[in-house]
């Protein structure tokens, strides 16, 4: 009897020792985990500013009205009193009451978000008779130039289930992550470092005391190369057309001064969660407002590509710029007839005149002489067919059609017809407006310019790799582009700038979306106005200014805008005018 009890007592002793000595550290951890909770203090998201420091994304204070049930003596009366000067609708006082009673007594319940200053004052004035009512301050992301910068800066959103975010953060009502654009690209830099409060709580989660506080570190400022004024002006000008994109770049530093995609949208709508209706409108629009057409829209470069073909030909050393072709309006290759833009032909043209008048026949003849491989090599050299590497997510890389590409994709051999189509930037060729701007910058500088959205503090240190091109050949292209705008026979003559210091040069393009059938050729080629918007030609102009010392390159693309000279070029002229006037540094 006593023996049994002795053994059992020994068991108790052993267990007590095991729990209290051997396992003690483990249980101490658990006990602290019980009583010490961490409250995350969200950092302020880093500002995004333009090149002169103008705020493009900032944090506005969000005043929200809270109610702490345990401090309220009469809930219904308090709610009615608040409702007299701050409308609590759409929720009725009855539904609010039931919701409040479901939250813990000591936890502040959010009655209303986004109080304006007037309402904050009213609450503060009436404070003595409103026990348990508080105004708490939080931060909300705000985009002052929402439409102009929606695509570049993107927006923040509350994390969804797919995001790799810890549960503690995801549960915070104010927590946002960058969803698109620079907000997504520089998420880590902008996010900052969260601080926390260590608090002691009891079993009912009521805070008993504060143990310590580690302040949060705000996210760092993102200083962009963009010029907000130019962006506004360009956006306004381009918005006159239905849909398009424009890029302006400093060719010496690669800094993008303006980058626009129209139509745009209000990025502030997304911050607090966009409504179903708004979302559907944006998502189903024919003009794809949610796409950043400057980097995600891919278009046949059209006649812009002639710069590549011309340069490739000159660089072989076998083709002289003075080589002439006779344009009679078309070229027959085998059984197929390739038409020039000018139906009756341009007559005798050399390279400069071919660029100036955008004669297709010249390039139809030139391209087979040098071959597609030579053209494709030059296109890659100029940065086409590859991502430019600009600091934005989801950039498209376009396409440079090559023999191997056609073999792989279509399992067909390359034909002479493909080379001829490629020579005028049609066929399978695709590029983004940003790529075309970069092409322009590379042609002008002869170096491998790479675009950037970040402000370059030390502009003298910016140095791009040389492309080992003959400067004389580049001069020929510039001459062509000068003539294109400033020669009365040039395709963009109507949009020239006459002021000598601000003259512009460039190349127009009308990139075809549809194939013109033989039947249509025989009867009458339909005018753009006569066909539906989706099938009209894209209007493109890539140009630069000033002509005597090129500094800015631009590409304006108007989706389905018709002839390049007519739609895109006037816009480009206005933008280049604006950048020369506006841009001082």
């Amino acid at each position, binding site marked *: *009897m*006593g023996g049994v*009890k002795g053994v*059992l*007592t020994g*068991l*108790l*002793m052993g*267990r*007590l*020792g095991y*729990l*209290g*000595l051997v*396992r*003690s550290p*483990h*249980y*101490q951890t*658990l*006990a*602290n985990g*019980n*009583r010490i909770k961490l409250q995350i203090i969200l950092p302020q998201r880093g500002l995004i500013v333009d090149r002169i420091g103008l705020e493009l994304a900032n944090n506005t204070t969000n005043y929200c009205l809270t109610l702490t049930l345990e401090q309220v003596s009469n809930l219904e009366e308090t709610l009615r009193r608040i409702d007299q000067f701050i409308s609590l609708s759409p929720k009725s006082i009855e539904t609010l009451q039931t919701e409040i009673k479901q939250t813990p007594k000591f936890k502040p319940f959010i009655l209303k978000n986004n109080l304006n200053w007037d309402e904050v004052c009213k609450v503060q004035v009436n404070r003595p008779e409103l026990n348990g009512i508080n105004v708490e301050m939080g931060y909300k992301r705000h985009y002052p130039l929402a439409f102009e910068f929606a695509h570049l800066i993107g927006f923040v959103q509350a994390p969804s289930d797919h995001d790799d975010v810890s549960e503690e953060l995801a549960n915070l009502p104010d927590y946002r992550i960058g969803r698109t654009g620079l907000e997504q690209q520089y998420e880590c830099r902008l996010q900052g470092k969260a601080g926390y409060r260590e608090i*002691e*709580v*009891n*079993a*009912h989660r009521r805070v*008993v005391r504060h143990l310590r506080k580690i302040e949060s570190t705000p996210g760092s400022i993102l200083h962009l190369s963009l010029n907000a004024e130019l962006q506004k002006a360009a956006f306004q000008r381009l918005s006159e057309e239905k849909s398009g994109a424009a890029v302006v770049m400093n060719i010496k530093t690669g800094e993008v001064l303006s980058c626009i995609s129209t139509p745009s949208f209000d990025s502030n709508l997304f911050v607090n969660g966009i409504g179903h209706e708004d979302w559907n409108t944006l998502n189903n629009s024919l003009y794809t407002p949610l796409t950043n057409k400057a980097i995600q829209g891919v278009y046949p470069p059209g006649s812009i590509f002639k710069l590549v073909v011309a340069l490739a030909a000159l660089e072989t050393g076998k083709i002289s710029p003075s080589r002439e072709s006779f344009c009679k309006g078309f070229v027959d290759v085998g059984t197929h007839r390739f038409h020039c833009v000018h139906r009756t032909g341009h007559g005798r043209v050399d390279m400069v005149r071919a660029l100036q008048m955008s004669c297709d026949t010249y390039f139809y003849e030139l391209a087979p002489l040098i071959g597609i491989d030579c053209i494709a090599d030059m296109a890659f050299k100029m940065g086409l067919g590859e991502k430019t590497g600009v600091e934005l997510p989801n950039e498209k890389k376009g396409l440079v059609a090559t023999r191997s590409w056609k073999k792989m994709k279509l399992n067909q051999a390359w034909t002479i017809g493909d080379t001829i189509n490629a020579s005028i930037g049609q066929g399978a060729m695709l590029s983004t407006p940003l790529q075309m701007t970069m092409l322009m910058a590379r042609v002008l500088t002869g170096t491998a310019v790479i675009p950037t959205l970040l402000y370059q503090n030390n502009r003298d240190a910016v140095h791009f790799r040389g492309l080992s091109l003959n400067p004389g050949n580049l001069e020929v292209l510039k001459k062509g582009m000068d003539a294109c705008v400033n020669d009365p026979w040039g395709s963009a003559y109507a949009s020239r700038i006459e002021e000598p210091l601000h003259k512009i040069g460039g190349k127009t393009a009308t990139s075809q979306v549809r194939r013109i059938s033989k039947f249509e050729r025989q009867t009458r080629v339909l005018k753009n106005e006569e066909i539906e918007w989706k099938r009209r030609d894209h209007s493109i102009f890539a140009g630069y200014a000033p002509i005597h010392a090129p500094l800015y390159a631009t590409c304006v693309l108007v989706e389905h805008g018709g002839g390049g000279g007519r739609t895109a070029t006037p816009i480009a002229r206005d933008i280049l005018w604006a950048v020369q006037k506006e841009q001082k540094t």
Partner: protein
Amino acid sequence: MGCSKGAKNLIRFPFSSFQKLRQVNGWIIGILTLIASIGFVVLYSAAGGNFSPWTEKQMIRFLAGLVVLIAIAVIDLRVWLTQSYILYIVSLVMLFAVEIAGRIGMGAQRWIDLYVFNIQPSELIKITLLMALGRYFHEMTLEDIRKLRYLIVPALMTIVPALLVMRQPDLGTAILLLFAGGTIFFVAGIRLWKVMLICVASLSAIPLLWHFMYDYQKERIFTFLDPERDRLGAGYNILQANIALGSGGFLGKGFRSGSQSHLNFLPEKQTDFIFATYCEEFGVLGGVVLLFLYICLIIYGYRVALASRSSYGRLLAMGLTTLLFLYVFINMAMVMRLVPVVGIPLPLVSYGGTAMLTVMMGIGLLMSIAIHRDVRIGRAGTFL
């Protein structure tokens, strides 16, 4: 075993009531006071450094309990012997009464309010069962005990109240009754194989017992086997108790510094789980000291049993000692997750009057046996 029936010389018990009072063991009163004081300290701490609501009431109860203890101790053991059956029957009837009252729904009150104490029939029966069994075996010769049919009556005497309290539902008391009653069978001299038989029988009764159990009792056993199964529900108590006890370490977190109890993570911190509250603040060392004090009481119980010349005294002392041991063991083992959670308080330390009264009455009887250790008692309770 059995008493010396051939004793010739009739010894009159020599002491007056006053002299008996002087025989009350001061050491034991001291140990009881020490144990109760540990309880006062823990209750004071658990109330956040207040005498109310627990400590002051508990002190009054302890003092009242001491009076009861001494009163019982000085009453002649033969009186207790002769009244054993009556007391047993009265408490059994009360048990039935509260069971029926509870079933009819006329107030689910299972106790009788005596201002300081609430008397629960289920508490009383723990003592009276032992007394009745003691008397039954006292009146029996060793030969009789070896006959199986003589065991039917005491077995029924044990099982009937055990089943009744289990329906209350009070699994803890049922276990105490079965084990403490079983001890008397064993000490009375039943052959070992019969004890084994009882063990086998009770093992085979487990399915029956399971059938009698309420869902929450079954849940407790599931929870015991795996408390992580339901961290915030049924397993919460025992996990938090383990955390409290384990986090105390060797020396504890210090008086009034137990986070588990003060921040209310530990449920039942002042009643069934008070051992965890205590160990959180006073550590393993404190736990060992308390256990040592209880061991002193138990050793005292054994010494009383061995010193008693009457069969009744020996049997009852063994039964009461086992009862005390079971209280302590089951409570501590349940807090430390060695056995499933059953509602058994830590004697003298846990807040509450009923268990305190039971233990004080039991120790009082032990003392009565000690004071009257030299009295020889005949089979019919007559003086020899």
